[in-house]
């Protein structure tokens, strides 16, 4: 079986700063794979490099068996979509939800736009009442649902999630995570998810990779993480940090 995403010794350089130093990764179709690490460890950069938003200096990325060049083809965007971290920044401030969802359909020349928009909104639990709102008329959770609808409307097989819930408060976080999990099961999607919250990763992902300063530290399964079967000090520190403050 070919991997949904295969990253081989990927290097990303921003103005002489090496954000990724030869990271390799394999994600199987239908799998949910997590990337964890502290801020600046390169996990978001890896996601953006796969999406074509970061300058790849070396290495290769293969999606569904097809090797990607520096320039992404239109077909690529129907396979891979992304949900951004900040729902307040990822929706155009002057467009209604309707316009936002219509745009990908127009770019890819879908004829049955009306039906698809309805379906996409229903799927993420937003009724028709939200369709002609502007993003400033929506709450954070609703915005993220719109962003998910926008990512799903092209029916991709792979979804890149860049800390999709970190900007939301706890109760909304759970709703959005459940929504994502439900969508994944129904559509048999492959997830590549970045988070600094180990609890979310263990809940959502089967396998994960720990990253530090642009390099992979170790690959683990979620069970490993739960049972603390970790080999590297860095991961141990992350685990300790995620346990939070312990009263002395």
């Amino acid at each position, binding site marked *: 079986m070919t991997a949904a995403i295969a990253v081989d010794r990927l290097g990303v350089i921003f103005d002489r700063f090496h954000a990724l130093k030869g990271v390799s990764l394999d994600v199987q179709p239908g799998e949910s794979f997590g990337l964890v690490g502290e801020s600046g460890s390169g996990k978001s950069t890896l996601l953006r490099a796969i*999406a*074509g*938003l970061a300058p790849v200096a070396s290495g290769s990325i293969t999606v569904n068996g097809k090797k990607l060049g520096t320039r*992404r083809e*239109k077909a*690529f*965007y*129907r396979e891979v*979509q*992304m949900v*951004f*971290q*900040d729902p307040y*920044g*990822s*929706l*155009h*401030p*002057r467009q*209604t939800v*309707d*316009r936002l969802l219509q*745009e*990908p359909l127009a*770019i*890819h020349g879908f004829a049955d736009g009306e039906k698809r928009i309805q379906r996409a909104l229903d799927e993420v639990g937003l009724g*028709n*009442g*939200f369709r*002609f*709102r*502007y993003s*400033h*008329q929506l709450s954070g959770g609703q915005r993220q649902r719109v*962003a998910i609808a*926008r990512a799903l409307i*092209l029916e991709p097989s792979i979804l890149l999630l860049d800390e999709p819930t970190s900007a939301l408060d706890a109760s909304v976080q759970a709703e959005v995570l459940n929504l994502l999990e439900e969508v994944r099961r129904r559509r048999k999607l492959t997830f590549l998810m970045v988070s600094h919250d180990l609890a979310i990763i263990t809940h959502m992902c089967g396998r994960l990779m720990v990253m530090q300063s642009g390099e992979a530290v170790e690959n683990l399964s979620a069970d490993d993480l739960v049972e603390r079967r970790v080999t590297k000090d860095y991961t141990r520190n992350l685990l300790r940090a995620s346990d939070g403050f312990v009263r002395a």
Partner: protein
Amino acid sequence: MSADAIQTRRDWLLSERPASRMQARLGRAYVAWRRFSANRLAFLGLLIIIALLVVAATAGVLAPYSPTFGDLKGSRLLAPSAEHWFGTDDLGRDILSRILYGSRWTLYVVILVAIIAAPIGLLVGTVAGYAGGWTDAILMRITDIFLAFPKLILALAFVAALGPGIENAVLAIAITSWPPYARIARAETLTVRNSDYIKAVQLMGASPFRIVLRHIMPLCISSLIIRVTLDMAGIILTAAGLGFLGLGAQPPLPEWGTMIASGRRFVLDQWWVAGAPGFAILIVSLGFNLLGDGLRDALDPRSGDQ
């Protein structure tokens, strides 16, 4: 209409759950309008501009005399009176009629300059800002070259090269007034080009052309409208200045700047010949400035929750 009907209509416009594209758009326009009309001075500016439009449209009906033919024998340089409200000029023409007809030329200049200069500036600025690199460098250096000359001097040079006349004056003013718009559009583009919502559109596979046209330009337009409106007073003054120097509209065209130029010779004894068109320029410029200020408050994307 009953108060109830007005209330339901307002609720419909301000609905949090618009049911159609149309309603969402109208609701937004209504919010902007409410903010705009709450500003009394801006409203006054709008009234002045509307009055200008009405006068220009109906000059043929409103003007009591011909703007180009006067009574050389009996009515030269008459002081303002009931017969000639603003007096007459050295060729016996009624100044009120000339000012009413002159409003057409003022509008002609202002609208043509705005139509030519604003889109050029918007295009140059957004393309430079979004493309970056060499494209940006080349486009912005060209803009800098235009900005390096004082506007009126450059316009003078263009008119001198193209030949005097109101069409050439319009062209010259348009050519000299787009660079600031390009700067504004570029600055706005730079602030949004790396935002996630533009990245999201890139991730849909949109072409750069589509992104600039449909996603970046709409964000630049409101600050551009504000700037163009505020510049209109300057455009009127430049056009009048060119007319005054004999390089804009040519006599007998009743253009306000040209009228001031021809009244200059008797400005001490027959002040109304130059004074009346000067006052007209003042009022219209003021109107555009007030309108521009009001639009800034109503449309500025950084203020309020637009």
